């Protein structure tokens, strides 16, 4: 392929190095296709969409109501009379469970009312009337059974006859409680700089905002001719709660495909440089780079700085070479979040590169994501399991997109700090504090997005 003159010039100093794109073909990366109708369960589709009301703002419980249960020996008439003697303006019984809902006296706080009621020996329990929210668990087909990375309930990950690892409950990024606070703004765009994105995939079709840009073939069509970019895009922001396939981290955020790697899964630094600058100029809020090269290059760093200076959060995979150094551009510490991988037990993945530039980690082992139908074949569902820091990075990109959705005024550096400082130090028993394997720890979306309660 002949490069245009302008791009050729840029490519020379950018070192004509074939990138080690984390395609699952590298040392630690694995790909597992999913046979159609075989392992993946087929749950009945539902068409319920969760319309979420406002965030958790305002009180956590009713300011003028409490719930009371009397001891079993207390007669109903006595109980009601007693409650009315406190001056409660409204007393309503929920007969099946013997609980009274009472409206507090004007001016009495819930805490005062509860303290008063709890002093009465006839009362078994007095509790606030807590506010509930719609449960933001997506109805995507494979969410419960396979997406341990988003919510891990300690399942057996039934991938194939010979791969059925037992996972550890809680070894996840706490996506479900975080979705209560934010599912993402459709105006927030994640640019996927990769092998392209399959825009026809049912879990991505509604999420891709444009055909994108193909710097590998120098055209305006960033269709995936590999599979990697489609998978990465889906992990970050697959169409969620659509009763189909998987849930993405950023439910409502959009995807901008930018093709910077060819069908062979490699790309030149110049393509990546062009891709980063183009995505930043297009107004992307987050750039995901599930790729990396071995060589430091000032032009690549300049491109990352260009995006950073324009308010773009740049996220890159650390690399799939255990014991090896962090790849570039992930190693550009000032401008890029370097993401290592953990597994379904919150252990550092045995393929993840390490170094002082590693910021955080995210699940990167047996991650289910979309894949082009032509790639997996007609006999298979268009999804596959893949492992690598390539799969870890889009979790962080999705999280960054949710933070930017909720707080668009935050500076890029602050978004990066939030992601770092809210991480769980899951290897604290062997390496307390920030370390070179998983940085500050495995990301925790709940800590970043759900209010911390001041006691």
């Amino acid at each position, binding site marked *: 392929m002949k490069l245009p003159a302008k791009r050729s010039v840029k490519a020379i100093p950018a070192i004509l190095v074939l990138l080690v794109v984390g395609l699952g073909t590298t040392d630690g990366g694995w790909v597992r296709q999913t046979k159609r109708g075989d392992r993946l369960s087929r749950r009945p589709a539902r068409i319920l969409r969760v319309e979420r009301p406002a965030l958790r703002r305002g*009180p*956590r419980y009713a300011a003028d109501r409490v719930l009371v249960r009397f001891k079993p020996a207390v007669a109903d008439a006595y109980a009601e009379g007693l409650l009315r003697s406190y001056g409660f303006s409204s007393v309503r019984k929920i007969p099946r469970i013997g609980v009274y809902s009472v409206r507090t006296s004007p001016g009495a706080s819930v805490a005062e009312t509860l303290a008063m009621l709890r002093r009465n020996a006839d009362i078994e329990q007095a509790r606030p009337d807590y506010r509930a929210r719609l449960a933001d668990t997506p109805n995507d087909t494979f969410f419960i059974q396979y997406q341990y990375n988003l919510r891990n309930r300690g399942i057996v990950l039934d991938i194939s006859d010979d791969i059925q690892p037992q996972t550890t409950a809680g070894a996840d990024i706490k996506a479900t409680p975080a979705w209560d606070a934010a599912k993402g703004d459709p105006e927030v765009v994640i640019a996927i700089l990769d092998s392209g994105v399959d825009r026809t995939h049912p879990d991505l079709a509604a999420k891709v905002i444009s055909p994108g840009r193909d710097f590998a073939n120098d055209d305006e069509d960033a269709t995936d001719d590999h599979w990697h970019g489609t998978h990465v895009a889906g992990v970050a922001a697959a169409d969620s709660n659509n009763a189909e396939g998987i849930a993405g981290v950023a439910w409502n955020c959009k995807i901008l495909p930018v093709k910077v790697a060819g069908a062979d899964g490699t790309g030149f630094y110049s393509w990546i440089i062009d891709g980063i600058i183009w995505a930043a100029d297009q107004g992307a809020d987050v750039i995901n780079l599930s790729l990396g090269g071995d060589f430091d290059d000032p032009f690549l760093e300049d491109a990352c700085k260009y995006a950073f200076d324009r308010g773009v959060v740049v996220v890159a995979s650390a690399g799939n070479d255990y014991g090896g150094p962090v790849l570039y551009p992930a190693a550009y510490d000032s401008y890029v979040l370097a993401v290592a991988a953990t597994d379904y037990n919150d252990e550092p993945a045995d393929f993840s590169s390490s170094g002082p530039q590693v910021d955080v980690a995210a699940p990167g082992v047996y991650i289910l994501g979309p894949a082009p139908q032509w790639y997996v074949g007609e006999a298979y569902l268009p999804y596959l399991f893949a492992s690598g820091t390539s799969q870890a990075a889009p979790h962080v990109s999705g999280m960054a997109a949710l933070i930017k959705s909720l707080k668009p005024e935050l500076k890029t550096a602050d978004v990066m700090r939030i992601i770092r400082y809210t991480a769980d130090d899951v290897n604290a028993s062997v390496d307390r504090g920030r370390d070179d394997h998983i940085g500050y720890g495995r990301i925790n979306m709940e*800590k970043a997005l759900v209010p911390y309660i001041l006691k």
Partner: protein
Amino acid sequence: MRKRSGGAWRLISLGIALVLAAAHAPAAESKVKMLMAGLNFDHFSRTVVWDGDTGPSRLQASLVSARTDFGFGKGLTLSLSAGLSLTDFEGLAFGTLPIPLAYDASPIKGLVLGAELEALLLKYGDFEIKAAGRFVSSFGMSRTWPLEGFAVVGEAKGRSNWMEASAGPRLAYLLSDAFVPYLEVNARWLRADFRMEETLEDLQGHEKKLVKGDLSFSVALGGDTRVSDRLTIKAKAGLVPYAGGADVLASVGLLYMF
């Protein structure tokens, strides 16, 4: 042992000094015809919607203050007070901080200053109508909470202020020298702010919550009871209705006449 707030003690001292100064003032030589001093307890709740919030939350305040009443004759009375406040902010959320915070802590202490003016408008038989206006301002003390469970050390620091102005007519029935009941209707204007700062290592943010001016109306019943030649108890209780409920206010004071 926790360190006591120097500001609080200074204010209490100021209140005591105010009362003592008033007590020793040469009343006869001035225009002050009557002088009373004592302690007052006030409590009120207000259901408000803070700017940026989608739902209401309740602000509750309890005040203990030293109070001095100056009577200038012809039904004109000025009351000055200074003391401490405890203000509770149930469920207040700070959603734009880098790490969002929700307030579920105990009430915040503050210093409170107040002034009340009462003027006789009309007297008809055993009834009299007065105009009463009151202004109270609470200056909250700073409070710090550690932020735990994060990868770096962090803390949140909050401070809150509020002020309430109320005015309206008071209809009193001059039942006897010992007891004068009254009915009071007030318009009440409340302004409150709560500034929260958050620091996690080099991640810093602040958010200021505001109630720019919440207007409500209250109805209260009260009475001034003369317990002896020198001692008077002033008490009042009322409701501040709003759509779907009512807030309350209550006040009781014990005053000594000089």
